[in-house]
């Protein structure tokens, strides 16, 4: 995972609640076996609508997405996080996230930031003219036009992983002894190889 410390850039506003991962990346694009190249299919059906928010010229090249509550609900498809990142987003700010989406985002270095709904609204208004935001994960702050500064909470371990770009599988494999000890003291409940045809 690529390390993330801070980003300054345009913020796009998608002020809708319960945006599901089926909208973020529709199913016809899940047949690919690669991890990259999903950006051009982001919000594929909505992008066809002429007045879809993300098509506004002032949001071109946006690196931050301001979204409504429960963003990324629904399907577990990590392709949704891949598509947002591939499109150019590095941070998504919303009042809440779907659990699986939030985890997927953290695993690939797309930073999901939770802020109260009224704070997200303040940020949405602040960038409506195309102004930039700065998101600083180290300082846990979002800064906007004028003297707008908002602090956010972030789970310390997840923050460290992002700041250092840590490979979480390598981290777990350092606990090999604990895993082996667990396996020695707990009999397996199932054996799928016994079902082989």
């Amino acid at each position, binding site marked *: 995972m690529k390390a993330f410390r801070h980003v300054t850039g345009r913020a796009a506003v998608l002020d809708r609640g319960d945006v599901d991962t089926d909208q973020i990346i529709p199913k016809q694009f899940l047949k690919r076996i690669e991890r990259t190249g999903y950006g051009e299919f982001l919000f594929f059906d909505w992008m066809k609508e002429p007045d879809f928010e993300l098509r506004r010229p002032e949001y071109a090249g946006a690196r931050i997405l301001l979204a409504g509550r429960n963003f990324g609900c629904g399907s577990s498809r990590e392709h949704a996080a891949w598509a947002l990142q591939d499109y150019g987003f590095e941070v998504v700010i919303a009042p809440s996230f779907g*659990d699986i989406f939030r985890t997927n985002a953290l695993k*690939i270095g797309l930073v999901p930031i939770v802020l109260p709904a009224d704070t997200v609204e303040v940020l949405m208004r602040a960038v409506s003219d195309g102004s930039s935001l700065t998101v600083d994960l180290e300082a846990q702050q979002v800064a906007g036009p004028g003297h707008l500064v908002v602090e956010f909470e972030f789970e310390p371990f997840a923050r460290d992983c992002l700041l250092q770009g840590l490979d979480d599988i390598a981290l777990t494999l350092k606990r090999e002894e604990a895993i082996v000890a667990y396996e020695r003291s707990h009999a397996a409940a199932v054996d799928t190889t016994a079902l082989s045809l």
Partner: protein
Amino acid sequence: MQPKTLFDRIWERHLVAEPEGEPALLYVDLHLIHEVTSPQAFEGLRLSGRRVRRPDLSLATMDHNVPTDEGPVTDLLAHRQLEALRRNCEEFGVTLFATGSGREGIVHVIGPELGLTQPGITIVCGDSHTSTHGAFGALAFGIGTSEVEHVLATQTLAQRRPKTMRISFEGELPERATAKDLILAAIGELGVSGGVGYVVEYGGEAIRALSMENRMTVCNMSIEWGARAGMIAPDDTTFAYLEGRPAAPEGAAWEQALDNWRALAGDTDATFDRELVVDVSGLVPQVTWGTNPEMVAPLDGAVPDPADYGDAAERAGVERALAYMGLTPGTKIEDIAVDRVFIGSCTNARIEDLRTAAAVVAGKRVHPSVRALVVPGSATVKRQAEEEGLDRIFTGAGFEWRRAGCSMCLGMNPDILQPGERCASTSNRNFEGRQGSGGRTHLVSPALAAAAAVAGHFVDPRELEPVA
């Protein structure tokens, strides 16, 4: 000793490590794999020179993008993805139930029917409907592809301890209401994000009275209101379902397992972070009218009016949903005509679902303006239905009888809605475009889907014309 919930017991028994300031490391007893969310995970293992740590705790099947008519996979991308799964399973030694093996099917249907899904175990899969397996008193939840790779490599998952919630469904479910109606009505009440951050235990008289397959329907839709997992304490219904299944313990091991499973249920004085009681004695069949599962109304109700919503954001959402669905406020649910009917998915494609639907359509005909599809949840369900003659009831009424797969639940295979087509579906998501770009989905129970196929619109199955 501190009283414990079912969740507490399973969580504590699966702790591999609890490092200070980090998420807990949880052992995974069963990892289910399918073609769509696994190729990048296997590729990650290859790139870093890692192996699958426990192939014996992993099982793969083909379900999401397989065609359900007889004949080869003609979609080249789907073909490439299915072949990738075959190659990956061979290379890493994972058992695969491929299409045509006779044991394939929707991953959440085959786990339980093989007896792999057992009380007290942890189950993950790169699919959000993994919550289905919680019906057995397992801790089961969906994960993304990065986590799939993590489980393949380590057989563990780093997890923050979630909050817990209990919902007690009290009262007796009226005869015309089903498990699907129970969970749809609950989601309508609690909202699509009401469960975010929680593992939910479903209990109460109405849940205890449900069959295993109906309990799976309830737990299946946990993710539709945002819950991390849903679970039901195992009881004699659970044990009776499991006994004799291919992967269930046998002989002395079965007796030992029963002792362990009986000790799993939570202490009566255990507390949850949130507790709710829902009375189901007045429950009626439910039909969704919008573009997420909380947008639901009783069968005898009507499409809502956005003007009745005080909150501006909510009103905008309802307006958008009605525009997408092509519905006018005030329209009676029973007056909504459908073009397509889909009976299938991990929510409602098990044998009992097919029996219920077949009982409704027996001796009747699918309405001339409707195209109706039955897709059994697994090759085993299909075989059993054919032994019982259900396939002939369906085809005799004008339904198409297909091979097992996820099919039109998400339309990754050729089974999709055309733009503007309206479908009564037994699946779990009515999101925009879910069943095909521009398609309009109404979520219902198998009984209501079957009745809609015959009448051409939503109707109480009891009101269908009797067979002459």
